[in-house]
């Protein structure tokens, strides 16, 4: 580790415009951080059996966290609210940040353990993140493969308005629109919560629609395709007809794919609408109204002008793009360098602040 950390304080907080970060990770240093919120029975279970998940998702890869974001205590990066505050929230003038706790709650195969972990994660978030830091909002952890239990957890925590969205993994066991998950969406809609799906998490099927990949590079490009499968499913199953106020936030899946996906889905609708009579509008209309996506990882065309061109293809959907840092992960974005420099101030302001403020009623 380096002896001295870089000085963030050179950045002028007073003149810096406010930022809303829609992918800010609160991390466990170890699963034991949750023990104060877990019944003894589950602590013993974890010590005995571990956190059993579907197999087959392991690749050689390097670090998952930024070393320069590690607290002086030596605990895992992102695992101490005080350090994350001084290291990121303060220097970047973050007005609000959406906590996304990447834990095993959604991924363990034992559904009772998953439900217990989800409750523990939510209690931990309230006590150790939301209470000490008022700028934070949280994603409500659930174990989605038991949707009835998950809906109960939404009921249990959903009245705390600091929870703003229900956290679904990037790769559920069935596409996100399937009816299996509707009890979760019903509970979310009742409490005015959005549905958020973060890349990675809860495997069980290969990252491709054609069998398992060989390299972590593929696992790291693939969430863009998984997210599209989920958007296709949510629209096609009629989730947005059934829950007309529900919003879907896609996190860490990129966003450059949205125009071509809308074009393709509208073409598909012309060919096969007879199969989906429950849809009353063009797929692109549902997407424009209901689907939001966060920036990191930002697609990087070789020619910066093509980024502007891409946003022209978004049209009004530019207002559905939300800034995300992914702090403190290895591939996280510095807010000052995430977007190309040739965007207008209005677009940057919309992505950095206005769009999230409107979506989350901040």
């Amino acid at each position, binding site marked *: 580790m380096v002896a001295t950390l870089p000085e963030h304080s050179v950045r002028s907080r007073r003149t810096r415009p406010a930022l809303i970060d829609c992918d800010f990770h609160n991390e466990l240093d170890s699963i034991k951080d949750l023990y104060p919120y877990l019944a003894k029975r589950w602590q013993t279970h974890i010590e005995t059996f571990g956190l059993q998940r579907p197999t087959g998702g392991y690749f050689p890869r390097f670090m998952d966290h930024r070393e320069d974001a590690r607290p002086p205590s030596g605990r895992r990066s992102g695992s101490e609210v005080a350090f994350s505050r001084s290291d990121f929230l303060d220097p970047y003038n973050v007005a609000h940040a959406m906590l996304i706790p990447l834990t095993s709650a959604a991924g363990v195969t034992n559904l009772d353990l998953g439900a217990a972990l989800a409750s523990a994660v939510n209690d931990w978030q309230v006590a150790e993140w939301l209470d000490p830091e008022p700028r934070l909002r949280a994603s409500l952890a659930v174990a989605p493969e038991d949707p009835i239990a998950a809906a109960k957890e939404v009921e249990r925590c959903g009245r705390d308005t600091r929870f703003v969205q229900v956290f679904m993994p990037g790769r559920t066991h069935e596409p996100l629109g399937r009816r299996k998950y509707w009890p979760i969406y019903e509970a979310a809609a009742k409490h005015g919560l959005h549905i958020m799906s973060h890349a990675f998490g809860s495997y069980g099927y290969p*990252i491709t629609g054609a*069998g398992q990949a060989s390299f972590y*590079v593929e696992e790291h*490009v693939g969430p863009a*395709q998984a997210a599209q499968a989920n958007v296709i499913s949510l629209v*096609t199953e009629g989730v947005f007809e059934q829950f007309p106020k529900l919003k879907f936030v896609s996190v860490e899946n990129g966003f450059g794919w949205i125009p*071509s996906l809308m074009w*393709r889905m509208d*073409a598909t609708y012309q060919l096969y609408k007879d199969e989906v009579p429950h849809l009353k509008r063009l797929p692109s209309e549902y997407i424009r109204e209901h689907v939001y996506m966060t920036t990191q990882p930002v697609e990087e065309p070789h020619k910066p002008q093509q980024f502007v061109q891409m946003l022209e293809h978004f049209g009004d959907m530019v207002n559905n793009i939300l800034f995300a840092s992914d702090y403190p992960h290895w591939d996280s974005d510095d807010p000052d360098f995430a977007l190309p420099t040739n965007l207008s101030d209005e677009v940057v302001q919309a992505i950095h602040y206005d769009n999230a403020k409107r979506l989350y009623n901040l």
Partner: protein
Amino acid sequence: MIEAQAAGVGASATRPALVDSDVHCEVPRVDALFPYLPDYWIEHIQQTLFKGPVDSYYPSKVSMAAGADGKRFDGVLPASSLKEIQDAVLDPSGASHAILNCLYAIDSLNNPDAAVAMARAVNDWLIAEWLEKDDRLRASMVVPVQLPTLAAREIERVGDYPGIVQVLLPVRTNQPLGNRNFHPLWSAIERKNLVAGVHFGGAPITPPTPTGWPSYYFEVYAGMAQVFATQLTNIVTEGVFDQFPGVKVAFLESGWTWIPSHMWRFDKEWKNLRRLVPWVNRAPSEYIREHVRVAIQPLDAPDQNPQHLLDVFDQLGSEEMLLYSSVYPRPQVGDPEESFLRHLPASAASKIRCENARALYGL
């Protein structure tokens, strides 16, 4: 940026030269293959429940016919006779050549001996009943993709036949096509100087999404672009183009408007993670532009502004990638001439209509 050309540029009096890179042909009934099957399998088909591949990459009865005239074929499987292809595709379009793709679901056959026998029969049928009868036709040979070494053996058997220009690989597979298990197949493709034609469809047991099985064909169709994207990631990442530098891949019925944003993300992740795959020594987009060709239908075009499609074409960064295709007899949305080609500079349009395909398939 590409400026849209003035109307009328593409509408010259003489018909432009054309190569159709994706025309389907169907096995009309399984007994059409009997002349090419060993007795063992003929008896099976006659005496047991086994009737050859029954899975289909498309819904069986929906809008099978091209255009509005849905009753034209009246009970006969569309694209199953040479005369129909001549009357409906070759003669009206004036195409100098068309590449036939027979989407018989060999990949759905779990019995390896059945898969090999059916693949051999289809290839012999393609040669005898299509290629030998019209010199405008070229064909993709079929292989049991699920058995890569046996697929390579079939390429050795028929890959030298002059009308065979491509090996047809369904995009949905049980393992991604770049996987080392497939390297004998890529080696055979390169050795015989064939194109790897990765086509819409496939009938493996693996679900078509990374989150399991969707409910509707609608989703399978729309989502097939993502299966192509992950295959593209895999083929480049595994080093197929490094190990087999002569290989070209044609994506057929994949759509192409998804490709620029995929290349942007893929290049970025390669920069991040290339130490994991050190043999990939150039940006993935460079490999893609050099080795991958893409049929233009489905267009997946924006409906409100034709300039957007020209933008996406420009973003591909190559005029050599796209191949004209009719995808006969599958229904398509939009007219590639009307909404795309006629807006292009004449030289780019001509590359897409014929020159790229001639270079790719050696026509």
